[in-house]
């Protein structure tokens, strides 16, 4: 069985069943015996999540992870900014298809409201299928 509507994902599944989804986002089909389930998504859709780990962060620093090209918060936005309660911060972020600019991130870490004060720290990173760890080297200001 083939899909007849635009899809965002194509899945390969072992079970042979067909399910037709009527939403505009996903329409999946399971072929009996072949275990194939395909979902088609838009090129701009997330293809999964990756954990971005910030290490060596000064406790109390505010961090912000944003799309480098636009300055917009990375998705999901609720995860992309906050105040470090510990030196290591695990941030689950949406990952996109290879080549998507949304994978290229700018990471800002700032602590200048209470002593000890630190110079603003910025770095960049690119998401992939693998977890990513970034060492934050803040310097006292």
């Amino acid at each position, binding site marked *: 069985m083939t899909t007849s509507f635009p899809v965002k994902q194509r899945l390969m599944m072992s079970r042979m069943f067909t399910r037709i989804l009527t939403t505009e986002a996903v329409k999946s089909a399971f072929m009996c015996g072949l275990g194939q389930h395909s979902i088609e998504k838009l090129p701009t859709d997330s293809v999964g999540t990756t954990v971005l780990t910030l290490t060596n962060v000064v406790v109390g*620093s*505010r961090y*912000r992870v*944003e799309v480098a090209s636009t*300055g917009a*918060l990375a998705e999901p936005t609720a995860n992309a*900014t906050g105040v470090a309660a510990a030196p290591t911060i695990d941030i689950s972020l949406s990952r996109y298809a290879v080549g998507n600019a949304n994978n290229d991130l700018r990471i*800002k870490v*700032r*602590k*200048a*409201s209470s002593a000890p*004060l630190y*110079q*603003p720290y*910025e770095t960049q990173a690119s998401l992939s299928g693998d977890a990513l760890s970034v060492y934050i080297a803040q310097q006292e*200001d």
Partner: protein
Amino acid sequence: MTIATDFEIQADKDIRYVGAAHGASGAGYYTVLEFHRWLQDLADDSGSTGDDLLDISKATPSDKQFDTIITLVNGYNIDDTAAEHLYGGSILQAGGDVIYDGLQVIANAGAHVEIVQNGALITNDFWNSIPFGSSTKGLNPDTANGRSHRFILKVRTGGADIDGRRLILQTREWGKTFSEFKINGTDRGINVAPLTYADDLNNTTASGTVATWTDVTNVTEGYALLDVNADTTDEAYYSEWDRGSRSINQFYERAKYLTRRGTSETLYGLNGELFRGITHEVTVDTPSGTFSAFEAISWSGGTGQMLAINSTTAPTKLWLQLLTGVAPTDNQTITGGTSGATCLVNVTVTERTLSFPFVGISTGSALIGAYGLGIETADLSVSDKLFDLTNTQITPPNLVTFTVLGLVSGEDYILVGPDDGAGALDDAQFTLNGALSGGTVTSVVVNEAIPSDTPASGTLRILRANGAYSRHPYSAYNAGTKTFTITSHDFSSNNAANGTSAYISYIDKLADASTATFQSQYASDRALFVRRRDGGASPTKTFESSATLGSAGGSITVQRLSDA
């Protein structure tokens, strides 16, 4: 008020001061470090508040290299008004195309500081504002540490340094000491300028009074040859001041008046407030055209005001006050702004020391002149010191005056001549070298050396054939040839024989006042013979006495005893 309320950060990254004005209650002033801290404090906020549009979503606004050097980055910027409320270091922005450098003045509280930048006084002297609640001028003072002013000033704009970031800070307050400190290119951080601001004990006359002393004039603006030390060889100066009827200290006060803050006077084509004197002596060659005696000049890399040139058509030296840029260097062309004349620098450029005020230092009764300053010789005493354009100290001669007092005008004839050491007139002070027998004799040559304390002009008594000493005015003498130049006289009859006697009659006249004087250049004490006679309608006995002309002058009061 706080820095947060005094400044706002606009959406376009313009950081502007919105607090109270200078001198008003609540006017805020912050160090550049405090400014940086405030920006960074906002930059780590989750969201913007109030009129400060800065939080973690915005680009980093500032970077600190040292506590005194702050760079605004990513387009954040201040304007000149905001800069007036910052101190304690430098602010760089626009990638270094705009720089405000820190200045700190070390002076007594209340000093009024002027700044000359790029050849002109900065008219917006905000740093002299009186802070609210204070009674003295000076923003951000630290009186405990002798700092009268702390502020920042723009020294670079549009990617170009303003006159090489050179600044002249000066104090020119009436009644106070004048001072100056030149910064030959500000550095990042705090540039310190020590100035003096204290009562000038030799400048106590009200300015309104000194304003009327217009008889103090510069007779020669430009190269002037004067024989100040009376050695028959002229020295060169760049002025010839006439102090008129004023004392030497009053001359000093008048000079301060001409160059004080707010003056409208002009010296050598410059406003008095900008006039400093000679900063450089330049050896030149290859002239073309005719220079003015003084004029604006320029060369590649600088401008100046020429104050003197030793020849307007064939100069070998000129003296200038540097206005902008740097002094000229070897082989550069100097061009006259008015004359269009040119010459080339011939290797040597000598920087000269300035005095503040420009005339030099007053002791109250004498002047220690500034480099190159010339004053009429008649206005100087042996206590004054001048420095000619070769920077040689020149000391005026000790001109001493002998005064005869107690005379009756129109009745007493007074004769003052050399004493022979025995209380009598030395009428053979000289002997003639050659007879005087011509009809129009103007030269009298003597055998003896003419003393160095002989007045430049006066009268000579010469023994004639009939035994009388005739009186002859002389206008000059030549010590080398032992020759007096006398008013033309007919010696064809009653001539004066070779070897006959002559003497200088220092005072030789019918009194026209109650006193009679003569002045001479002191060399050593001179013994004088004084004779007064009045054989007229109310005759008096002859008065004769010896007297001494010393290093401080001399005097005698004649007696008038009736001979009726």
